[in-house]
């Protein structure tokens, strides 16, 4: 202790001699007398504690390889080896650069090797050092998994002491980053080995074990399913977690336990209506969002809560009424507060650092809350300055915030009412369009998906968006490599074409180009194909439009239709295609394209006799459009179809059990006694685009 003090004061007073002193420490490591070496290491330990400069100096002067050598040398005394690992651990406590140098010197294999030693004190020293190295973000976690014997050995060390338990679980929780890591740990019995630690008398051990479970269970069904059945001291693990969420427990523990249960719930191991979720986890997470907690805790709480209730509307409803959550989240936007700016720089700095995180967490949670329920969406948009915040969030520098803001906007855009009112009032399309210009894919997916909704027929934002040259942008999206972007692009175009005027339709066709259109028709993604067919159908509606488009692109379209009808496709795709055919049959001149194509008529006939009612119906629509009485040449067409034997099929259909179908067949009877009533089946696709 005296040594330490004097050394420290020496380094402080004589800064210019620092390197010289450090040199002296390193030199002593090479002393031939092991006793002197030991004393040298101990002195070095005392010298580096809390002194980053000294640490850096020693590393530069090459102390690490020598220390590692001494550590690995079986001839060294255990005491020396232990002291070596302590010094190394101390060096690792310094800057990230220190860690990098240590890792570069292969400290990890050396320390892992050291774990094989039977001496507990030495093992603990090694583990402590390993822990410090592994919790640093600069250490590649893969190093833990390179040697397959390491994990089993660590598992076996878990029973040695509370310290080994604490360090090992801490290493695990920091080194479990991928599903593969989860599987490795799971396969080596992590759950059985770590579960008993949850009731350890040591708080640190309990906490680290809990963290371990939270990373193990994250998006991992296998682990989660196993966890629910684990008993700890006769108690179900979920109950242990619930106990850890009690309000008198430290916040960190409550939060981590809530995370565990959240992950287990999302992985399907716990039902969303289970009381431990509804009455415990959810309220606990809502509590974490309250003002009285640290900013980090609030961020984590909000993100976890958003994740928990994302798929479940009932949880969203409950959360929206819990503790005024919607209003509470508004506070997340008040950082840095005006008070902090004036009173204290430190706090301002702290607030600034977390401001982005807080905002994105709040946006995420709003997005989750409002994803299904109209009332909640209304509540959110009515929160003070909410729309303004989203709008400014869309153009923030931080990608995370932009993404979260656009997610929130997307969630709210599912509301017809909001589209008509607040979205229009705040001109959200402007920043949205700006966001679409140059954004990373993940933002683009969300933004384009939101745009789909904004382009819906009843949205007042549709007009200004059209004028801002969105068509080109969307067409370029359809050429993206990402299926999600292609779907969104074509989907938006489809929505745009719905009941659009001739100019817009022409613009779409011109801009997209028939080539691209047909490329999309052969897209491997069924979703893209469906939306493209939807676009075609929307383009081919109302008679003049049909005739105009068919006169210019008739050949290609008929070709594409034939191809799809002939290829292996799902019922839905075929139905959509037949609907397009029915639309074509509704045109004045376009009819002829079908009537002159015997092959096509045969196909229609085939589908009228198809086992699927939907296809039958679509094909029958097509025929009834062709033979519609009030048009020129209907007589000839009726004659031709009669020749081709459509009467029999229609007759058969009138006998069919499906009332929907038989009605339409009746009206389609070529004897033409009845007026045909075909409702224009326009695509008003489910516009609530799920992403």
């Amino acid at each position: 202790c005296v040594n330490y003090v004097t050394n420290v004061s020496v380094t402080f007073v004589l800064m210019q001699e620092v390197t010289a002193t450090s040199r002296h420490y390193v030199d002593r490591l090479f002393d031939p007398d092991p006793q002197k070496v030991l004393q040298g290491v101990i002195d070095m330990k005392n010298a580096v504690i809390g002194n980053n400069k000294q640490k850096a100096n020693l590393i530069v002067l090459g102390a690490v390889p020598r220390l590692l050598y001494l550590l690995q040398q079986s001839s060294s005394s255990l005491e020396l080896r232990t002291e070596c690992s302590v010094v190394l651990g101390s060096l690792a406590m310094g800057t990230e650069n220190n860690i990098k140098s240590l890792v570069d010197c292969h400290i990890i294999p050396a320390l892992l090797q050291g774990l094989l030693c039977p001496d507990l004190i030495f093992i603990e020293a090694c583990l402590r050092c390993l822990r410090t190295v592994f919790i640093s973000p600069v250490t590649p976690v893969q190093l833990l998994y390179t040697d397959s014997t390491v994990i089993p050995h660590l598992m076996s060390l878990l029973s040695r002491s509370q310290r080994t338990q604490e360090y090992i679980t801490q290493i695990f929780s920091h080194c479990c980053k991928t599903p593969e890591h989860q599987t490795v740990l799971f396969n080596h019995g992590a759950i059985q080995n770590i579960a008993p630690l949850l009731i350890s008398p040591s708080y640190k051990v309990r906490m680290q074990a809990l963290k371990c479970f939270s990373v193990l269970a994250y998006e991992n069904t296998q682990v989660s399913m196993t966890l629910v059945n684990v008993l700890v001291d006769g108690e179900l693990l979920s109950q242990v977690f619930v106990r850890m969420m009690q309000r008198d427990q430290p916040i960190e523990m409550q939060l981590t336990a809530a995370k565990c249960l959240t992950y287990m719930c999302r992985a399907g191991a716990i039902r969303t209506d289970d009381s431990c979720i509804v009455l415990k986890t959810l309220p606990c997470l809502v509590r974490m969002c309250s003002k009285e907690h640290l900013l980090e805790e609030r961020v984590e709480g909000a993100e976890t809560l958003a994740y928990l209730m994302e798929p479940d509307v009932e949880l969203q409803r409950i959360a929206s009424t819990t503790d005024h959550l919607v209003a509470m989240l508004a506070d997340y936007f008040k950082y840095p507060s005006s008070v902090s700016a004036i009173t204290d720089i430190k706090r301002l700095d702290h607030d600034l650092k977390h401001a982005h995180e807080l905002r994105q967490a709040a946006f995420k949670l709003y997005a989750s809350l409002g994803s299904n329920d109209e009332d909640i969406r209304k509540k959110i948009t009515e929160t003070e300055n909410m729309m303004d915040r989203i709008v400014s969030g869309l153009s923030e520098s931080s990608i995370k915030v932009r993404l979260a803001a656009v997610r929130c906007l997307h969630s709210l855009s599912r509301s017809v009412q909001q589209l008509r009112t607040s979205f229009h009032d705040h001109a959200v399309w402007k920043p949205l369009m700006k966001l679409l210009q140059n954004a990373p894919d993940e933002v683009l997916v969300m933004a384009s998906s939101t745009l789909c909704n904004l382009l819906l027929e009843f949205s007042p934002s549709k007009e200004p968006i059209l004028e801002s040259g969105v068509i080109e942008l969307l067409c370029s999206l359809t050429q993206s490599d990402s299926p999600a972007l292609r779907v969104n692009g074509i989907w938006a175009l489809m929505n745009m074409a719905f009941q659009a005027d001739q100019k817009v339709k022409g613009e779409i066709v011109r801009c997209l180009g028939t080539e691209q259109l047909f490329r999309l028709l052969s897209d491997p993604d069924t979703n893209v194909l469906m939306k493209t067919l939807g676009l075609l159908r929307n383009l081919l509606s109302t008679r003049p439009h049909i005739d105009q488009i068919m006169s210019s692109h008739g050949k290609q379209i008929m070709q594409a239709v034939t191809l799809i009808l002939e290829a292996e496709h799902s019922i839905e795709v075929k139905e959509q295609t037949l609907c397009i055919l029915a639309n074509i049959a509704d045109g004045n001149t376009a009819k002829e394209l079908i009537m002159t194509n015997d092959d096509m008529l045969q196909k229609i006939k085939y589908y009228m006799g198809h086992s699927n009612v939907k296809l039958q119906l679509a094909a029958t629509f097509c025929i009834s459009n062709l033979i519609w009485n009030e048009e020129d040449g209907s007589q000839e067409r009726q004659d031709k179809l009669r020749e081709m034997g459509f009467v029999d099929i229609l007759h058969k259909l009138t006998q069919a059990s499906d009332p929907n179908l038989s009605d339409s067949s009746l009206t389609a009877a070529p004897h033409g006694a009845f007026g045909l009533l075909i409702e224009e089946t326009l695509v008003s696709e489910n516009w609530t685009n799920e992403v």
Partner: protein
Amino acid sequence: MLPPTGSSYRESAILNCHVSTAAQSGQTKEISHAFEMLWLVQRPVSQAVVSWPDCGLPWIRFSTPRSLVPDSGHGKNHKDAASVRATHPIPAACGIYYFEVKIVSKGRDGYMGIGLSAQGVNMNRLPWLLVGSITVSDTCNGAQTAHSFINTYKLSEVRRHTGQVCDFLLVSEEVSWKEQRWDKHSYGYHGDDGHSFCSSGTGQPYGPTFTTGDVIGCCVNLINNTCFYTKNGISLGHAPYDLCFTYFYPQCILQPNLYPTVGLQTPGEIVDANFGQQPFVFDIEDYMSEWRAKIHGMIARFPIGERLGEWQAVLQNMVSSYLVHHGYCATATAFARATETMIQEDQTSIKNRQRIQKLVLAGRVGEAIEATQQLYPGLLEHNPNLLFMLKCRQFVEMVNGTDSEVCCLTIRSPKSQDSYPGSPSLSPRHGASNTHLHTGGADSPTCSNGVTPTNKSKSHSGAGSSSVKYPSVSSSASSSTSSSPSSVNYSESNSSDSTKSQPHSANSTQETSDSEMEIEAEHYTNGVVEGSSARIMNGTYKHEEILQPDDNSIGNGVTDEGCNNNRQLCGGNQAATERMIQFGRELQALNEQLCREYGKNATHKKMLQ
């Protein structure tokens, strides 16, 4: 309103009460444990709120017997509402209090409210607690209903009266649930719109609506004076108001206790209350554990600064200053001797302060002011607010008849007054005898019954009634004489001057009774023991412009006690009344003066009310 149409709406709103039948089940221990858990500060379980006003009778469910008029759209009107309060108020020292109500049926329209309400009476001045009320809004039917309740439950409960807390049912027809929204200190969460109401007619959006099958909880946190509701075990967050509690100094409670309350309006509404007999849906223990941890943390982290290691001295100093502050001078001296510390204050000064305190506690505020002015000249002059507070109290005591300025006028010889409570050592016993007197009065129904008809007749034929009243008073006085010798002197003087003052009383009241006939009639039909005092009070405040209508609460409370104690009211003496009115005007003037000097002061306003 049309007359009641019969029994068709009799069961209009039913309140199921699962009363803790602690005695009969083996769960006693468990239940009492549960109650203990509900208390951060330990208090006898007997004071915990356990039920609606059922008084331990085996009537588990009761209906508010109201009859509604079919034409007028029953249940639509605020006046059709009724509210039920629990038998006991939320204990002042409980820290956190919680109860739950299950909506068994939302009835026709689901206009239900869950919340808290105050009694509207100054509890402090009442030696007993008014422990629950069923309010009946149908004014036409009110009288009759009230009677039926009293006959059925009240009298029996009066017999069960224990002297300290009585399970008592008061029926007052003037307050209805919805009207209670406008009442001071009533807080509710309503099922039809999810709004929360706080002492006002307009609610604020608060939470979701609730309906059949929902369990609504109400949690009162006395630590930070907040309140929140829960729905099906989920906390809905703080209600947008702070509760007005002033529990800390029992001597100066201005705000009354709060009671768990349920309001019902439309036919068929049924609710079940749970005061802790069954497990709650909401995890209240978890909530309490959080607060416990918070408080422990606060204590653990309490900054001790430089004085570390001086615990002993700090503790001794604390004990010593407590003793000195409260005037336990002998104990303080002994303590100082034992711990070898010094007492900062002179012994005589302690004794003086003690004397003034006792004067105030005995209600003789005028003397207290005088003594203060003598012993500590300049003190009151420098603290005009304190003086004002004291004068307010003095005024209240005047109404009560305790204050010497009035007493001097009513009692023949001022000396006798001095001789009795003059020495402070007697005053605790004086307090005890009060209670006893009151107990005697309430214990014997004949006594209270005796008073009521007297009053009634008195209001119609002034002088004749004094002879009727006199025996009843003396009977109660003599009953107390036998058990408590110390009060003999007191009751004698009372009875003697009551004879004298009776005509005055009759005179003074008759003046007002003409105009106030209606109100009086209601009071009589209530059959409440303190009918006479209430009437006097009515008369008084009619004269008294200073008092605003609100002081019904204080006034009633004070005078009630006065009556129960059989102490003569100032209302019984013309001169005293005049003196009182004059004093009230002085008080008003003083307030105005203070207002000029210090700007408006909300506390003063409150006190004046």
